[in-house]
Structure formats: structure tokens, C-alpha cells
């Protein structure tokens, strides 16, 4: 069995640098890296964040039955049309604790507000809650990915931080395909990873901790956790390498992406999505968050035919003069309508990338007979409604995947005054994590 698994992966990975894995569901997907053999219906949780919201109306499906069954999406969501049976479109979601470009990202998964003076939230994020439960058996408790930000604000803490392992600790995000690959397949090595050395470092940290006051201990605790995570990783990677060592062809054929960021944005996104799929498929982790950009992205999407100007500028479409402070000074639009449709076009492009991910996940068969998509819970969305009005009462969101048969998809859920926190609470419960409160919410998301 194991032998077959490895051969299969060897085949898959030698397919090319883009790491695209064709559908080959006759092989099993038992993990070479998990601590134990993957149980049936290994559940995974994925969050995909995009900034700048979506124009109002572009999130409304065109045809829905009386009971909410999705019959037809709409032209702006066309790339997702083939997957409509795997989706839920929740409407009317909001975040009472703050939204937008700045407070929005930290709030999106924590639901407890962002304290700008102290640069902290009031909660750890939903993915980290899940990682505490699902992450014990995997190489990495969770994986945080992001596309490398461009322009102003690309080093802003709140705009880049959706995952918080403590209310005061945002997690850094991997932006380079090669670095993502290395975290999965190239464990840290060298003199500092010798167990004697690590033991020494830990005893030093213990001594230091005693010297410090309570509040300082927090940082030393961060340190401890980092070293422990490291030890765990080294341990896991030993298993990984012994699993891999049975077949030299595989170790040789794991294609490590080249260093740097691909110059084509689409190629970049797809490489990252391929790595995301690879991580889930090999059970390197079960919890992944991926920011498709920072909370106020000013990226150009001029490579999409008919689109001009930066993303954030496009989102403020009601002034098409090209002369506002959001603009780059050189792009102009003929009309508000034109600008707005370009804004929607950027969304549609992201839908296409999301559809690519869904297609990949759907093509992979799990040991329990379900597809990888069926065993995932995915939330794809933004911390902002219509970017022009900085709307906050209908956050563009899509839920995908079946949570191991626990979520019935193919529906629109039109509910009033449901918070993101209640959605997170429900998602955790669907994963089998028994909590009765998340963020400020004690209510689950009704209807899921």
C-alpha cells in the first residue's frame, strides 16, 4: 500500500514544476507524514481571503429555488458555475466588531475587534483554534500563505494579519512557493537542530523565564512554543524521510519550485494553490489560510483584458476621474460604470482561481471514497462588502466543500444579521470541535 502511494506521488510530482496533479483516484492517499494512519474522513479547514470587497449585486445568484437551491449563479460568478453544487452562498453576513481594509483582516477570523493602540485582537483566530485540535497529528499545525503584497501598506501589520495564534501574536505568512515547499519537505537542519544543543537552549529559556515578570514571560513562551514546534517538526520529518527513503525516485522527483516570485501573477497564484493542495493531500497540515493579497491591495490587474488601474482604486468606482488619492495618477476611466465593471472583473478573475482550486480538490479521491473537496471546509471571502461604500452588511462570502459529509451544499442562505463569528463557530462544530462560543458569538450560523 505504502509502496503504491509513493509511486503515485513520484509520478505526480515529476509531472512538472507547476506541481499540477492530474486526477488519479485509483491510488490511496494515506499520508506518509501523519503521525498515525489517516482516519476515515480526515477533515480539513481552509480560509481564502481577498481584499477590497466586491461590487454590490455581483454576489447575488440569478436563479434560486424557493428553498434556496442554487440553479444559476450570475455572469460575474461564471467561473464558479460548474461548482455551484459544491457551494453555499451565505448572504447578509457581517462583522459587528469592525470591517474594512484595516480592522477587517484581523477581525475576519477572530471576531473580537482590533485594538489599534496595542496592535492586538481579543481572540485567537478560528484557524488557530482548529489547528489546536487538528494540528497535533500533522507535520505543521497550520500553514499560513499569502501572495506577496505590493505598494503602500504591504508591510502594515493589521492589513496582513488574519491568523492569530494568541490575541497578541499574528502569524507570519509564507509568500514564496519555494519557502512553502521547504516548510513541508525540507526540515530545518544544521548545528542548531542537534538535540543536545536544543536541550541546552530550552534550559536557558527556562532559566530566563524565571527571571522575568509575568508580562515578559509571554514573549519567552512564544519562544518556547517555537522551539517545541521545531522539535516536533524534526521528529515528523524523520518519519517523513524514512517513508520517502524507500523510494529514491520520489525524493529525487519532489520538484522544488525555483526561488523567487513568478512574474506572471496567475502562475504565482496557481503555484501557491498547487502547494496548498499538496499540503492537504499529503496531510502535511489540515488547516490552511491563504491571503490573496493584503487588506488594501493596490495591485495592478492590467493583465486581465480590459482592466486598468489598481485594485483598491477600482473598488472606489464612484469617482472615475482617475485623480483621487486612491488612484495612481495615470489611469483614467470613461465612466463610473466602466470602472465598476473592471472592479467586478478583478473579482471574477479571483473566482476563476478559486474554481481552479475547487477543481483540483475535487479531482483527488480520499481513502474514505470521498473527494478531497468533500472532506474540506472552505471559506472564501472578504472583510469588506461593496468597496465603494465600504459596505459591511453583506460580506461577499462563499462556503465550499462538505466538511466530510456534514455540510449540505448547493444552496444560497439568505439570513439576516448573521455574524462571521457565528459562521466560524459552526465551522468548528462541523469539524467535530465542541465549542459553544467563538468571538462574541454564542449562536451558531443557523441553516448551515
Amino acid at each position, binding site marked *: 500500500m505504502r509502496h503504491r502511494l509513493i509511486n503515485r506521488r513520484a509520478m505526480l510530482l515529476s509531472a512538472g514544476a507547476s506541481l499540477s496533479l492530474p486526477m488519479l483516484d485509483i491510488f490511496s492517499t494515506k499520508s506518509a507524514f501523519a503521525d498515525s494512519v489517516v482516519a476515515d474522513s480526515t477533515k480539513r479547514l481552509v480560509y481564502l481571503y481577498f481584499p477590497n470587497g466586491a461590487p454590490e449585486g455581483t454576489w447575488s445568484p440569478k436563479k434560486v429555488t424557493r428553498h434556496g437551491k442554487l440553479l444559476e449563479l450570475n455572469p460575474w460568478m461564471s467561473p464558479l458555475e460548474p461548482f455551484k453544487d459544491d457551494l453555499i452562498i451565505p448572504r447578509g453576513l457581517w462583522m459587528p466588531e469592525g470591517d474594512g481594509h484595516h480592522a477587517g483582516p484581523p477581525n475576519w477570523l477572530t471576531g473580537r475587534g482590533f485594538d489599534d493602540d496595542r*496592535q492586538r485582537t481579543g481572540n485567537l483566530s478560528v484557524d488557530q483554534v482548529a489547528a489546536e485540535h487538528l494540528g497535533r497529528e500533522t507535520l505543521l499545525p497550520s500553514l499560513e500563505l499569502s501572495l506577496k503584497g505590493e505598494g503602500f501598506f*504591504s508591510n502594515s501589520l493589521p492589513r496582513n494579519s488574519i491568523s492569530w495564534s494568541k490575541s497578541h501574536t499574528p502569524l507570519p505568512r509564507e509568500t514564496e512557493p519555494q519557502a512553502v515547499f521547504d516548510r513541508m519537505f525540507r526540515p530545518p537542519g544544521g548545528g542548531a537542530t542537534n538535540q543536545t*544543543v536544543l536541550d541546552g537552549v530550552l534550559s536557558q529559556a527556562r532559566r530566563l523565564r524565571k527571571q522575568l515578570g509575568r508580562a*515578559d514571560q509571554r514573549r519567552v513562551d512564544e519562544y518556547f512554543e517555537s522551539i517545541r*514546534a521545531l522539535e516536533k517538526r524534526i521528529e515528523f520529518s524523520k518519519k517523513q524521510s524514512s517513508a520517502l527513503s524507500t523510494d529514491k525516485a520520489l525524493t529525487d522527483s519532489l520538484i522544488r519550485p525555483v526561488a523567487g516570485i513568478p512574474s506572471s501573477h496567475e502562475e504565482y497564484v496557481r503555484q501557491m494553490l498547487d502547494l496548498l493542495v499538496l499540503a492537504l493531500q499529503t496531510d502535511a497540515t489540515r488547516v490552511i489560510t491563504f491571503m490573496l493579497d493584503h487588506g488594501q491591495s493596490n495591485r495592478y490587474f492590467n493583465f486581465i483584458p480590459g482592466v486598468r488601474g489598481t485594485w483598491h482604486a477600482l473598488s472606489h468606482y464612484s469617482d472615475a476621474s482617475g485623480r483621487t488619492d486612491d488612484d495612481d*495618477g495615470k489611469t483614467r476611466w470613461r465612466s463610473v460604470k466602466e470602472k465598476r465593471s473592471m472592479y467586478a472583473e478583478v473579482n471574477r478573475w479571483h473566482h476563476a482561481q478559486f474554481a481552479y482550486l475547487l477543481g483540483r480538490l475535487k479531482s483527488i479521491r480520499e481513502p474514505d471514497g470521498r473527494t478531497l473537496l468533500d472532506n474540506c471546509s472552505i471559506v472564501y471571502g472578504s472583510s469588506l462588502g461593496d468597496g465603494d461604500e465600504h459596505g459591511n452588511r453583506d460580506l461577499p462570502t462563499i462556503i465550499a466543500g462538505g466538511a466530510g459529509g456534514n455540510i449540505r451544499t448547493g444552496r444560497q442562505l439568505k439570513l439576516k444579521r448573521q455574524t462571521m463569528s457565528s459562521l466560524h463557530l459552526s465551522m468548528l462544530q462541523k469539524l467535530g470541535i465542541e465549542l459553544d462560543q467563538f468571538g462574541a458569538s454564542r449562536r451558531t450560523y443557523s441553516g448551515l
Partner: protein
Amino acid sequence: MRSSANKTTQKPSGLEACGSGNELFELVDTTKRNRIWNWENRCEMNVSLTLCAVIWICSLIFALPVQAEERVQKSGVALFKQFCFDCHSGGSSEAGNDIENLFLAKPIVKNRKSWNRIKQLIEYETMPPSDYDQPSSYERKLMLEWIQDNVDQFDYSTVKHPGWEPVRRMTHLEYNNTIRDLLGVKMNLVEKFPRELVGNTGFENSANTLFLQPALMERYIAAAERATTAANIFESSDTHQFNNALQQFLRRSYRRPIGKTEFEFYLENLSKLKRQGAGDAEAIKGIMAGVLISPDFLLRVESNSDQSGKISEHELATRLSYFLWASMPDDELLKLADDGRLSEPTVLRQQVQRMLGDRKSAGFVESFVGQWLSTRLVGKEIRLDPIDNAWCTDSLMQSMRIETLMFVAAIIKENRPITDLIDADFTYVNEELAKTLYGFQSIRGNRMRRIQLKGRGRRGILGHASVLAVTSNHDETSPIKRGAYVLDRILGTPPPPPPPDVGELDEELIENDRLSLAQKLRRHAADKKCASCHNTIDPIGIALEKFGAYGRTRKWAASTATLADGYELRGAEDLREYLLTQRRSDFVRNFVVRVMEYALGRETEYFDEPAIRKIIAEANENDLKIQSIVHSVVTSYPFQYRKENPK
């Protein structure tokens, strides 16, 4: 006024601080009585407005009997309740601004930043929103008056606290410099580190944004391996010599003396590694790599403060070196700390001078200036497409950045007054920068050199291509951006963001090609909603209009405008004079605060106010000489002490 009775009320007793004590709670808690009170209050105002004004003016001039003073207090508080609390009180306050809560803070200046924002919003009439009840101009005045009396004029004499931040890791820049100075290894070890994120201070060395997560630890492991592989390993068959070298390495790595047990621990680990089969060099490398990932190395630990909160000599050495060098303390600093002499005033003064003279002070200039003025974005976030703009080369971008750095470095080295930042008559250029952007034809070669500026036009940082590019929209100037930048970065008085119901320049106006940008902005500012703010922002930017997007001279551009306070600015020259005369105290204060925030690695708080005022006073006594400001900062209470924050 400060009866103890309110302590028995249900709400916490944060009231004394706002000066009006009980009344607030009566107002806040008993809606019914409140309504009556408001009604009376309004009648009183509407009917006898003149009388009130007289009383108000009197209360400013004379110390009136308590009763009259109380009236101002009372009216102020009541007006906030009347006009703001509808949206800004309780848990679900709009924009997260719970003004009711601000009144309860103790001391009231705890939220002085929020109060300053509120002050602006009232002053510029951007709040309450236009579709809500508007206070009369007299009522606005009363509210401002209340803030002034209770927040601006707060008596800080009893406030004494040095502030506190958790132990922090080094920044990536500091890490790289430290390895350079510790091991003599010059390589970019931090290239693949996760990006440093920045919070409130705008500086990446702020303790509250320096986290140590597993993903970063993995980078430290890899960097330690690279660094120890590249470094010269100290090997010696002479035990005494070897022990000495190890001792020195540990002391320099941990920036403090190494105790006997601690040292023996490393010797023991060393032999353990050898027993496991490591060769001499490999074992030593392992020990070194362990040191480079140890908490004592990566974290800037401060644990030795005594009862008074004073940090230890070695901690002072570390604070100094990371402030002025962005790197570890050298042997001289460590030696002085060992001898317990570093904090002696004369020694400290000498050391600061020495450190500023050392080339490692480039670490401070690059990091502080690059972030304060955002000039380090030039060539990265700030750049034009080189295909359309062949002149926009990497070397030009670099020269632009370096001009500003060399300029500030010279001001520090020559101990010039900080006003030179605005109007010094020299700068640094090479041929490319001089010809491409400034139109100076006589400069030859790539070397950046100092030149004397003949005219007054391009003096100071506001004439630097770097600053002018950072404050432009791509390849067009933006008077709004430049005005806001000067108000924020140079004066420390940022304008409030535009209110949500106000649009940008309207389309019809934009399309009117017969108007210059300056004229359009004037029209825009004529719109009453926008006027209040833009009359303070735009004229500053317009005064810089003779500089193009990348600082090219544009003789044709109109650059005259009048500020809200009636001050007319005719071009950059007038702007400089305005900044250094009318706004001199804001400019000085802002510089001091920025240096403090960088030096301390945190935002300044209300309890830093006494120290800030002292530094400003000392700066003024010393003709605003830049080194004396740095010196005042390192001798200040917050720099030399540390105590857990008041709750």
C-alpha cells in the same frame, strides 16, 4: 466637586478626572432628568447666548468663582452627550469610538490621541455627520474649550512612569547587523525571513510588533547554520586561550557578563557533542549555532531593573547600541557597563558622541530616516515603469535615497540644529541625480558629493527628490498628499481622514481642462464640507508645486495659496519659513517624539509627556542641536527606566 459619593454609584469611579465629577453620571445615567437638563441648557444658551459668551470669555481671562467655571465644564460635558453619545457610546459604538468611555478614563489624558482626533472633528466640523443635529458654533467652541481645559492643560506634575514594553526580538535589520559585528560575517541572512510588519509608530522596531513565531524560528535555525559556516571558528589547543575565546563570544552574544555556572554549562555541552562523535570544529560550530538561536541572543532581555525601575548598565548599553547603531554593543560599551560607569553622565555623553561619529551610526540614519520619511520606499514601492521612463534607473533611485540619508547624517555629524532639516543650504548629489532631476549641469561622476545650494528654492528635505517622489501620485504631483505628509510626518499633526459622506474632487471640476490643478483644489476647498480640512492641507502642498513628481523643477507651476489661518504661502521658501516660525514648536515636538518612539521601540504615552517636555526644553536651550536632542533622549527617564504599565 470631587465628592466621594460617586464611589458608591454603580459605575466605576473614573469621574474625578474629567473635572466635573458627579454631573456626568447624573447626565449619563438618568435619561429623564437629563432630558430636562438638556432642555434647560439649550434654552439658556439660545436665549442668553450673549450672556453666556461674556461669561465664557470672562472665565478665560479671570479666575472666576467656582460656579461660573463649573458652568463651562458642565456645558462641555453635556454637549458631548447631546451631540455624540447617540452613536458613540456603549458597546457597539460607531467606528469603535466610545466617547462616553473616554470620559471615564483615568487619568483623562490616557486617551489623549482620541481626544485630539475628536478636537479635529469638532473644529473642522466633520462631526456630527451633516444629517445629524449640528451644534452651533458657540457650542462647538464650548466643547473644544472643555477638551482644552481638561486634556491639553492637564496637570502632569503628579505623573511619573517610565513605560514598559515586553522583551522583544531583534528586527531583521538588527539581526543582520548583529551577526556582522559578532562574527565578522557580511552576508544578507534575512532575505528569506517573513516580512517585518509595522504597527502604529511606523517603525518596525516597535516591541508590540516583534513576534517570535515558529516560522521565524526556522529561519533563525537556517541563518545560524549559514553564519557559523561562514564564520571563522575559534579553535585552539591551548585550553586557557580557548576558554577565553568562548567566554568572550558568549559575553558579546548575550551582551552581558557570563557567570561561572553558565560558562561551565557550555563547556559541558561541548564535550557532550564531542562524545557524540562531533569533531572539534563541528562541536564548536554547534555551540555557536545554539547561541545564535538562544533566547538571550535573539531577545533583548531586560530583567535587572531594581525597585526604582532603573535598567542595568548592560541593558543600557544594549538600548544605546540598538538605538544608535541598530546593532550590538561593542567592547568599549560592554567594558564600561562591566565597570558600572556607562550611566555616569559625562561617560554617557562621550559615548553618545562617539557612537554618532562611528560609521555604524548609518544603521540609525538608514532605519530611522528611511521609515520616518518613508524614503526607503523609493525604488521599491515608489518607482515608474522604466520602459516608459528610461531616466528612472535603479542607480537614480538609489541616489535619491542616499541623498536624504547623507544629508541627515551630515546634520548629525556636524551637530547642526534640527531646523537645518528644513532649510540647510547644502545637499548631496551625483551627476545623474543633479542632471536628471535638479537641472544642475556642472556635476560629474557617480560619486555622491556635497554641494552648496545657491538659490533658496531647494533647501532641506522638502526639496529632496526622495521626499517629493514619496508624496506624489505616480508621475503627477499631489498637493493633498504633500500637504498631509508635511502635517503628519514633519509637524505631527495629521489631518483627519475625509468623512465618509464627502466625495473626492467632483467629476465636472476634474474635466474642466482650463483650470490648473491648484485652481481646482481651490474650488474643491470652496465646498464647505471639504473646506475646513483642505484649507489646512492643500496650501502646503501647493507651495511645493514648483517641484514635479520626482522633484524636477517646474518653473511654470503656480505655487501660491493661503492657509486657513490667513498665512499666505508663496512657494517652498515661504513654506519653510512658515514651518520654522509659525509651526516651530510642532516641528520640534514632532521630531522629539519620533526619535523617542524609535529609541524606545514603542508609541509615546501620556506618562511620557513630562520627559518629552523636558527634552524639548533642553533642546531649546541648546539651539535645537541634533546631538543634544539625542543626548536628552538617552538620559531621559523612559530611556533609563522600565516599569510595568499602570492598569
